[in-house]
């Protein structure tokens, strides 16, 4: 009897030990090739960072997964022993949810969607604050008063970015316009190039964009025009012309999420309300031409010499304004938001009343165009 008890104890002890030392095997599903130098690339950079950081973590990935086939790939990852699975495209949403219901013992996290489950969280690192800061800089640099914006799809995410950017532009240069061209593709260098050429022909002299290639930066630089990088550091493509840009740090979210799973804080039962919407203050996004370089030193003088009479700060250079706004939003107790009322859309309707901020729901469903945006705007209310 004693012996049996001892054996049983040993088994239980082993079981507990095994559980507490359990490794996490995380699978990542990417929609694009990891070499796209945009979205999937950034997720993979983050995966490698967390993989190296934690010895209890093992990661694997599959790339260029068609959106309709995500479930097949999830099955494959589960068979390979993954207990945490990240799916990184909006189009994976329904497939991920279906898989989450089929595999109640696996933890899922879906990027950029809105459907959750007990074992499925959502996460997103958003750039709208960063675009606003870039807008401030762009407004000070344009000489023609026309800024070009090459955009992928007319969806709320991209519209939010263009609007935030334009609000920044008009804050320092109330007459400037942001001219938008849509390419209807996330990745098509030729389309991005022709859209940029078209904007140059229209007289635009500063460029920003939301699509997955460094094309806009390259084309603008060929013509000697400044631009803002997007997603990955694009400084090296045109060191004289990339002024600043939007950088992402998905690893901040992955680290937080995985550590909380490892510590037993997140389980397969309590994720129904876990939604990461991380911004500047969490360090998930960064303003810069490359990490650590908020403003390309070549443009510092021009921004310091561009002094405006700001309603809140009085006489101030755009250079100072950039860092004030950045601190206001990067500080955990955020004291400023680009969509701070009053905000009018370009049809003259008041969309955010004086003194108000927009709710998360209003931000992620934004369809209107702010004053100062010029060009087609499919789905404009």
């Amino acid at each position, binding site marked *: 009897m004693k012996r049996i008890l001892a054996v049983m104890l040993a088994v239980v002890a082993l079981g507990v030990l095994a559980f507490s030392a359990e490794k996490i095997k995380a699978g990542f599903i990417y929609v694009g*090739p990891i*070499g796209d130098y945009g979205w999937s690339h950034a997720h993979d950079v983050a995966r490698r960072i967390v993989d190296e950081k934690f010895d209890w973590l093992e990661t694997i990935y599959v790339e260029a997964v068609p959106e309709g086939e995500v479930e097949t790939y999830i099955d494959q990852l589960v068979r390979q022993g993954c207990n945490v699975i990240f799916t990184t495209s909006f189009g994976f949403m329904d497939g991920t949810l279906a898989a989450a219901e089929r595999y109640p013992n696996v933890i899922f996290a879906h990027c950029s969607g809105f459907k959750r489950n007990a074992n499925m969280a959502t996460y997103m690192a958003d750039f709208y604050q960063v675009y606003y800061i870039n807008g401030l800089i762009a407004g000070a640099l344009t000489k023609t008063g026309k800024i070009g914006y090459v955009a992928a799809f007319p969806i709320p995410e991209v519209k939010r970015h263009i609007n935030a950017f334009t609000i920044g532009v008009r804050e320092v240069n109330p007459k400037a316009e942001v001219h938008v*061209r*849509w390419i209807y593709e996330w*990745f098509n260098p*030729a389309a991005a190039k022709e859209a940029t*050429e078209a904007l140059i*022909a229209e007289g635009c002299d500063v460029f920003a964009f939301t699509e997955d290639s460094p094309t806009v930066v390259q084309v603008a630089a060929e013509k000697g025009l400044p631009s803002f990088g997007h997603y990955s550091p694009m400084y090296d493509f045109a060191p004289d012309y990339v002024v600043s840009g939007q950088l992402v740090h998905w690893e901040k979210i992955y680290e937080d999420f995985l550590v909380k799973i490892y510590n037993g804080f997140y389980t397969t039962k309590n994720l129904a309300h876990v939604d990461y919407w991380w911004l500047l203050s969490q360090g998930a996004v960064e303003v810069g031409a490359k990490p650590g370089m908020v403003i390309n030193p070549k443009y510092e003088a021009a921004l310091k010499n561009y002094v405006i009479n700001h309603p809140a700060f009085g006489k101030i250079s755009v250079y100072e304004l950039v860092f004030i706004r950045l601190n206001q939003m990067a500080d955990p107790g955020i004291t400023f938001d680009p969509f701070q009322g009053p905000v009018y859309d370009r049809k003259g309707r008041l969309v955010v009343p004086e003194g108000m901020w927009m709710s998360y729901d209003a931000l992620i469903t934004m369809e209107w165009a702010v004053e100062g945006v010029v060009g087609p705007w499919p789905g404009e209310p």
Partner: protein
Amino acid sequence: MDFASWLISTVSRALAFGVPLLWGTLGEIYAERAGVVNLGVEGMMILGAFMAFAVSQSTGHPGLGLFCAALIGGVAALLHAFVTVTIRANQYVSGLALSMFGLGLAGLLGRGWEGKPLGNTLPTLTIPGLSRIPVLGPMLFQDQTILTYLGIFLAVVLWLLLFRTRWGLAIRSVGENPSTADSLGINVTLVRYLCVFFGGLLAGVGGGYLSVAYRPAWTEGMTAGMGWIVIALTIFAAWDPLQALWGAFFFGALYHLSYRLQAYLAPELLKLMPYLFAIVVLAISGLGGARWRRRAPGALGLPYVRGER
């Protein structure tokens, strides 16, 4: 915006965007004139794009890069020639496979080259004297690379070769009626090999242009469907090198205008325009086009077996 500025930007961009299409189409015309459909253009172009970038980046010579791009395009085309001419497999299947193979291989080889800016790009030319002419100067003689002018020159030469020489006659007869050509002592296999190989060379250059001149960087999948437009343009041009010239530049102009006109017309419609054009062309050539049908090489897509009809 005044008329002159519209004209200048449209023509200038049409030339720049039309270049890879023109090179690819000229090559495909030769392959198809000899009776071999090569749907692998997309694959040959992307291999050329990768090769041109990798070689230019490591040696600093974009010209050498383009040369190697031509070679790899040619080698890939030889694969297609071997499978379709020697083994006599289905040309369409082999071509599709070549496209997929090229995209995959270039993506794999390109892993370490992704996202690196190219130090030495193919320079754009400003032709002394001519570029000063008002309107015409900026329209035709600025911001173009040597490949624009070389491509136009090549189109004329290839037209002469095809319709005014014995060689051209040999190529056309192989595509039209290989058994007759064979009975006249023309080496059908050799002609087909050479034409398909030549098509690969030009497709490789077209792809290389994308990565060392048009948008100097390597990105996986950067040809983004241009190879398929080439296939449509070959039909649109009715297998005639001079008409390929108009086709490629007309398509380039449409492509540019689809962005230029966004401020005035619904962008969804404009985005459709170039592709709608491709479909319309194919429909016309397929339905009403007695003219087209007459001009299509008679033995297009058919393997040649001596003694069979």
